């Protein structure tokens, strides 16, 4: 009897250890693609990232060499345009959810924002194609930037709301008690206190849409030359990586890896920046 109970206990302990091991192996499997992708990006891409790649236009089809300078600049232009649309709408909308409105309406708006965050990015491309490209008869940087900007709105809105809610009520009450009007309190006290968090949200949204390809396929469309007008098609780094990756040329494959490495480096720089921004002030509220 006694012995049996001891055996049972040992068996239960073994089972617990076994479950822990399985969970550990799962965790390793989950992060292993990260290691593998990084390893292959470095092996295949590092050799091709050079001065030419960063400063030259793509070589004519079939010719070896050339670079992706236009795509790198194009991505930055698209992000700037997307920011002009996405940042003000997202930030001010987030402020409304945190500061004004009734609980019921706000929960509906929050719900819709979460649903929008789940809309496939290719859908945004189709919608902007219908709205802009068909109407103005041509692919353009405007259309691409708009598509990315619309994707940013619900992302920024939700992060802004979260950090604005973290600002202690005492700050608001103090300002209001001084006779400062409500909107000045929100802009000068609340948003200023939450600014680090708001900027973090904006940076994360930019990093996210900076790697998007699907919404640009038939809005920005891509371009093998410099873009001279925002009403013309424009190149973007992820788009160029895609085009080169599915092409039949070896030299283009080599450049796709290089482009992917540049893109990932950019995105991770932003993520590290965010980490520094949030870590320095982990102790304070925001």
């Amino acid at each position, binding site marked *: 009897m006694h012995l049996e109970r001891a055996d049972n206990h040992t068996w239960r*302990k073994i*089972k617990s250890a076994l479950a822990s091991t399985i969970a550990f192996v799962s*965790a390793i499997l989950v992060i292993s693609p990260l290691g*593998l992708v990084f390893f292959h990006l470095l092996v295949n891409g590092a050799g091709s990232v050079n001065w030419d790649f960063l400063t030259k236009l793509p070589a004519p089809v079939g010719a070896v060499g050339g670079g992706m300078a236009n795509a790198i600049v194009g991505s930055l232009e698209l992000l700037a345009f997307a920011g002009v649309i996405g940042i003000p*709408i997202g930030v*001010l909308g987030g402020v409304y959810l945190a500061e*004004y409105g009734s609980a019921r309406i706000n929960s509906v708006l929050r719900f819709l924002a979460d649903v929008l965050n*789940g809309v496939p990015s290719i859908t945004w491309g189709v919608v902007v194609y219908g709205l802009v490209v068909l109407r103005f008869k041509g692919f353009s940087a405007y259309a691409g930037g708009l598509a990315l900007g619309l994707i940013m709105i619900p992302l920024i809105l939700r992060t802004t709301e979260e950090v604005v809610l973290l600002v202690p009520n005492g700050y608001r009450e103090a300002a209001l008690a001084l006779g400062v009007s409500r909107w000045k309190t929100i802009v000068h006290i609340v948003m200023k206190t939450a600014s680090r968090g708001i900027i973090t949200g904006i940076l994360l949204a930019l990093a996210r849409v900076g790697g998007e390809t699907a919404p640009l396929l038939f809005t920005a469309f891509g371009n093998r030359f410099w873009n001279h007008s925002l009403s013309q098609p424009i190149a973007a780094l992820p788009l160029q990586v895609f085009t080169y990756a599915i092409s039949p040329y070896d030299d283009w494959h080599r450049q796709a890896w290089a482009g992917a490495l540049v*893109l990932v480096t950019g995105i991770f720089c932003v993520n590290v920046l965010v980490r520094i921004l949030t870590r320095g002030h982990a102790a304070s509220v925001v």
Partner: protein
Amino acid sequence: MYRSGLPLLIKVLSFMAIAASIAVEERSVQVRMASPSRFGDKAFEWLTLAMALAVVVLVILIGWQLWIGSSVAIKKFGFHFLVTSTWDPVAEQFGALPFIYGTLVSSLIALLIAVPLSIATAAYLTELAPLWIRQPLVSLIEMLAAIPSVILGLWGIFVMIPWLRDYPFPFLKRLFGWTPFFSGPIYGPSMLAGGIIIAIMILPIITSVSREILRSVPNLQREAAYALGATRWEATRIAVFSYAKKGLFGAVILGLGRALGETMAVTMVIGNTPQIAASLLKPGYTLASVIANEFTEATTDMYLQALFEIGLVLFGITILVNLLAQLLLRTITTTSATRAVQ
């Protein structure tokens, strides 16, 4: 002067303000009465409200644009669009069944792979792992989430597919070749490859949402189990998992929503062939990839209309799945919030 003097005053006055503990409603009324810039207050409130309403406008805009973009096709093909499998742009015959099938099957494969791994990882991160390892692991998972789809697709084409073709696929074929699921020749780009790449894409989101859910389980649950003499695994299974069941289901549905709409990586590895084949080693096609591949090639109006309708179908499916996920997750957060208040 106005700005620099304010913070100090705030610190002093916040004590007084808290001490006074004025009710929120009362306060705002008083301030509004006394404030010299009532117009500014109103204007700012309306401005932010207009921006917040953007989410309503966007949802309507997407639905409306997809609807008018495909209205002719909807009228012409009707319900048949969803249940026929001819996709012939030259004859202007369009049926979306192979794409719907491909989307569902590839997402299902992805869930089969990703769900056990993600939930086990989430349990490891909240219940089982040594404390020092947790934060670094979470950071790595966040980094995986930040990798753009197109880069995973690039890796899929040049690294994953050749490897799958050389080792796991022949192995699966030898083992399960007698079933219809692993029969036929091995191509490389295939439904299974598409499912695997989607699984990698949705691992981080299911893991991090599940982790949040498990973290929200009250410690009292665990303590009760330990007090009864449960081992670590038993406490996790009995006290944590059963409590978090609904939330974990929400996390899985959220992952499904992402899987259905995943575009670039899948397009690059699934083979892009509109067919309904039992064998997972054969190429397939998804709703999202047919839009990505053929949209700019749509030469006729009806072709474009059909692709818009594909977009509408995809939007409809993902909206429904996301609504379900949000409802499941929302009830969890509200109940845990009310519990916290009580």
